[in-house]
């Protein structure tokens, strides 16, 4: 029987190639999604590992619940001198005080070197620091010298020996590139610069305190021994941890930050698995059905049902294994291709594509197991059909009822809708993110299961214009797509998911843009808005703009992450505290005062935003304890207010913030600039632009530009989603091609009949094309409806977080349906040609 099974594969090469393609597609979808996911997380893991390679770290005791992500942690508190004591211990190879800050590096083309999402970091270079490796030139030894990380050097266009400009500590200065170094991992586009220790520590540890000390063990000393040895030297308010602990903490923190994206990708991968399984089982169901007679013959000559069953499974296993291998290669290739495409479009999906065991294992198992399982159901039927019945001319294989699946689908959809509704109707504290996320995923999966049940009705409507306009092609095509709703729905599955994604995302994006525009227009009144690509406007630039005669007033939005606790002792964790000009709320920003008076800012009191105030139980008159770099300070709450322009939950006057944190450690995120009397906005913009030009990273925007700039930022976040859309469209096209090609083979006799009674080749090709278009449009319409419906729930959930308006981009959605038509036509090309080329007599007498 094994020989029969393997011969069967050889005898129906085209059919098995198509099955192989189906498995490969399904697996490629899974492998591609998984590797996109792994690619992202491994990139960040690599950065963490390279960023904290030490065996032990001495650092400030992290406060409960505070963020440990580098740069936003507690203020530097570790005295540098401690490093010398630690270095003197036995078993310690190096002890490196670590302090870092931000920098603007000007590249060879005179513009700032920066990537879309990664930061620009600068730190001190110590010759004995093992975490970096000078591979060209030398390390910086005196002020005015810098060394660049390899990728940074490459993207800057500079070479070792060049002189360029940097903005460091708010001042513009010349710097000579004296070397190039490596960090031991790709740094995901971060711009990395080192300076000499004198400059570095003066800037980033002005009071002799650094964020941490990295300790490297000598050979033969374990990290635990190291920690034990260091511990006695460390004062009570500091702690020492192993490098592994720190790395794990950092990874956990990053995972938390990327939580949304990784969870999303995981959900997408699960759905991809679902769709992959659909595509595969579709193909096997068709293939087994077409070979019913062959199996009947085997039965007639004495094969037992078990043998027939086994032979089908063997074939499925062979196809599944080979297909999975191809699929893994295809999936990784697809991701590589998408990555290049996006890079070419200027959207960076950082990191290498990992070929990890988990992706390969999962994909192989999924492909093979699903193939065998998918074949098992029809195989059982084929094995049990009485030979005589199968030998008859019209083998009527009863279609499995789609009722079970429809009921399950309705159930899952219902649960999902309930989850989303719960989040929408939730009026208490916070938002039910988990209910919303799980609900959305359940709706998507539920609709996917329901799709066959929906297919007949939806396709009936979609096909109506074709039926009316293209006689008889429309009617034939409609008959073919509704003939097997399960197959049509499964084929459309990949597209359905991709389109749900796009529909949802485009609604969110347009709504977010509209909301931002609304907020900015109604709440921010400034002639110009200055922002920095490094998220910190150099202090020198602010001083220069202030000094311009054309400038009437400026308002800097400075902020610093600080420990905030309320008077009652309840710890609110690290919060951004913003410092603003006293009269900011009089003109530039319009805020809604809930309680108290914003004028109290001038008196050194704090204003808190409504949501965190509700959350923490803060009220006017309460006292907040803010832990500044210079020690804790008590501030009375003078007002509760709400505005969408300022993100920080706590706002104090600029003087108060300066007292808490030295100005050079504050981040100035935005600078609002108003013209002096009689100066036009255009003239002001030209002048200000010229004034900040030396600082390279500062962009000067009018209010309109500011709005569209924020919209662009929203779009940047969507890059990964577009990558997934690309993946699902490619899979969808190939899936439709596959199903159509098999369906054409399956319908050979019917096609022969149609041709015999006079259907022309073009009409036949037209029928196949209309089928394909209907399938694609069906997937798109259902997907878009689901995506748009889910996204429409968001503004009511996140209204308080700034997503206040719901805007449905009808034009974009129509464009997607247009894309579906193109996809359908493309997918039909080959199967339609194949059908049209069939010889009539062969088709009529096809067995």
């Amino acid at each position, binding site marked *: 029987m094994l020989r029969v099974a393997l011969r069967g594969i050889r005898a129906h090469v085209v059919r098995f190639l198509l099955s192989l393609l189906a498995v490969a597609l399904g697996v490629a979808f899974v492998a591609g999604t998984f590797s996109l996911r792994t690619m992202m997380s491994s990139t960040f893991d690599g950065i963490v590992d390279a960023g904290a390679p030490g065996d032990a770290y001495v650092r400030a005791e992290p406060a409960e619940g505070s963020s440990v992500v580098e740069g936003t942690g507690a203020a530097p508190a570790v005295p540098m001198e401690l490093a010398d004591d630690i270095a003197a211990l036995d078993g310690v190879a190096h002890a490196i005080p670590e302090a870092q800050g931000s920098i603007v590096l000007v590249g060879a083309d005179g513009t700032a070197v920066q990537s879309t999402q990664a930061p620009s970091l600068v730190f001190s270079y110590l010759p004995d620091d093992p975490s970096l490796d000078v591979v060209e030139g030398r390390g910086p030894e005196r002020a005015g010298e810098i060394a660049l990380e390899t990728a940074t050097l490459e993207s800057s266009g500079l070479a070792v020996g060049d002189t360029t400009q940097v903005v460091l500590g708010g001042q513009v200065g010349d710097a000579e590139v004296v070397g190039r170094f490596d960090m031991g991992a790709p740094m995901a586009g971060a711009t990395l610069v080192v300076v000499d220790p004198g400059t570095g520590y003066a800037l980033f540890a002005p009071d002799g305190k650094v964020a941490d000390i990295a300790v490297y063990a000598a050979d033969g000393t374990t990290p635990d021994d190291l920690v034990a040895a260091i511990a006695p030297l460390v004062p009570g308010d500091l702690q020492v941890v192993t490098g592994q602990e720190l790395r794990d903490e950092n990874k956990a923190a990053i995972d938390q930050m990327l939580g949304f994206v990784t969870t999303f990708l995981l959900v997408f991968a699960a759905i991809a698995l679902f769709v992959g399984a659909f595509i595969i089982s579709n193909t096997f169901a068709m293939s087994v059905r077409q070979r019913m007679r062959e199996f009947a013959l085997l039965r007639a000559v004495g094969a037992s049902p078990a043998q027939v069953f086994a032979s089908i499974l063997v074939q499925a296993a062979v196809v599944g294994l080979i297909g999975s291998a191809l699929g893994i290669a295809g999936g990784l290739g697809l991701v590589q291709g998408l990555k290049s495409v996006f890079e070419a479009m200027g959207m960076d999906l950082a990191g290498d594509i990992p070929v990890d065991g988990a992706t390969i294992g999962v994909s192989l198992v999924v492909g093979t197991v699903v193939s065998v399982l998918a074949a098992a159901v029809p195989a059982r039927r084929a094995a049990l059909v009485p030979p005589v019945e199968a030998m008859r001319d019209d083998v009527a294989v009863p279609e499995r009822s789609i009722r079970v699946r429809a009921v399950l689908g309705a159930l899952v959809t219902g649960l999902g809708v309930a989850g989303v509704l719960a989040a929408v109707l939730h009026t208490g504290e916070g938002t039910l993110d988990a209910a919303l996320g799980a609900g959305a995923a359940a709706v998507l999966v539920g609709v996917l299961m329901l799709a066959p049940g929906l297919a007949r009705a939806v396709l009936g409507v979609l096909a109506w214009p074709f039926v009316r306009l293209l006689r008889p092609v429309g009617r034939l095509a409609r008959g073919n797509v509704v003939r097997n709703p399960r197959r049509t729905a499964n084929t459309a599955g990949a597209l359905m998911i991709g389109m749900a994604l796009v529909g949802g995302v485009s609604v969110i994006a347009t709504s977010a843009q509209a909301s931002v525009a609304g907020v900015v227009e109604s709440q921010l009144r400034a002639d110009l808005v200055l922002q920095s690509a490094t998220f910190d406007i150099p202090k020198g630039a602010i001083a220069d703009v202030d000094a311009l005669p054309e400038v009437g007033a400026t308002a800097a939005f400075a902020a610093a992450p600080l420990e905030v606790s309320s008077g009652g002792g309840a710890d609110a964790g690290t919060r951004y505290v913003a410092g603003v000009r006293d009269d900011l709320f009089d003109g530039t920003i319009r805020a809604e005062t809930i309680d108290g008076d914003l004028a109290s800012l001038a008196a050194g009191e704090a204003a808190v935003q409504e949501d965190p105030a509700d959350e923490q139980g803060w009220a006017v008159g309460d006292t907040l304890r803010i832990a500044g770099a210079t020690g804790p300070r008590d501030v009375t709450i003078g007002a509760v207010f709400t505005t969408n322009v300022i993100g920080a939950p706590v706002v104090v006057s600029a003087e108060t913030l300066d007292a808490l944190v030295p100005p050079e450690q504050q981040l100035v995120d935005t600078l609002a600039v108003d013209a002096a009397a009689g100066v036009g906005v255009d003239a002001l913009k030209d002048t200000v632009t010229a004034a900040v030009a030396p600082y390279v990273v500062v962009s000067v925007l009018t209010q309109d530009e500011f709005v569209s700039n924020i919209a662009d930022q929203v779009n940047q976040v969507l890059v990964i989603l577009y990558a997934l859309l690309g993946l699902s469209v490619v899979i969808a096209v190939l899936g439709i091609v596959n199903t159509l090609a098999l369906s054409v083979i399956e319908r050979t006799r019917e096609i022969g009949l149609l041709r015999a009674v*006079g259907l*022309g080749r073009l009409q036949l090709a037209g029928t196949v094309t209309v089928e394909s278009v209907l399938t694609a449009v069906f997937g798109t319409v259902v997907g878009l409806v689901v995506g748009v419906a889910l996204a429409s729930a968001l503004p009511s959930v996140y209204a308080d977080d700034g997503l206040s308006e719901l805007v449905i981009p009808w034009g974009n959605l129509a464009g997607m349906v247009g894309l579906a038509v193109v996809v359908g036509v493309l997918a039909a090309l080959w199967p339609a040609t194949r059908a049209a080329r069939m010889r009539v007599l062969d088709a009529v007498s096809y067995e």
Partner: protein
Amino acid sequence: MATHDGTPIASARGLVKTYGSGDTAVRALDGVDVDFGRGELTAIMGPSGSGKSTLMHCMAGLDRSDAGTVVVDGLEVSGMGERKLTRLRRDRLGFVFQAFNLVPTLTALENITLPLDIARRPVDRAHLDAVVQAVGLADRLGHKPTELSGGQQQRVACARALVSRPAVVFADEPTGNLDSTSSGEVLGFLRRSVDDLGQSVVMVTHDPTAASYAHRVLFLADGRLVGELTDPTPDSVLAALAALRPSAGTHAAPAPVPAASRGPR
């Protein structure tokens, strides 16, 4: 009986068709000259492999002959391109196959009007009603093929073949899969379409009873026309078939009347 104006509705001259090549070559048609009468039901009979289906396929433009000419309704079929053949089948021919005659996704009525739909011709309501009435399917028109019995399916196929008023209907073993009652209905209908509507029908069959419904029976053996019967009965057809068997010789009574153009040798 419909009028005979003498000119055949379809004819072939010197038709040759060979399958395969070299040692395995099979001459399915070995120089066939034949005329099918206008307004007649003509049956083609012969043992398996005699070339009867090939003859019909060549006549209907479904297959290409290696030599010889085929003329249907005044048009030379041999030498037509694919496009012209499609138009010929659509406008001038009707087909009834042994099985798989209907498009499963269309209702009985949609199947019947399919040729008109394909040609984008208007449906002649009166003619359609007459045809539907004649096949006795008026109450089954909204059903899908799977909801019809085998006999009903074949009657729908017959109605479809007739609805476009083709010059000739080619029926390939139209009753091959039917029980005797259903066969009788289908054959009776085909015969009435000839007698009442003046339709020309060519039918391939191996069933003497089916052949007895014809006005004329042609006998084929080894790719040659070996005899014919007019106004046959089941018995006379059986006898003629028996006479064709090599062991029975060529003199069994009643001997088939030699075909006009070429007799048995």
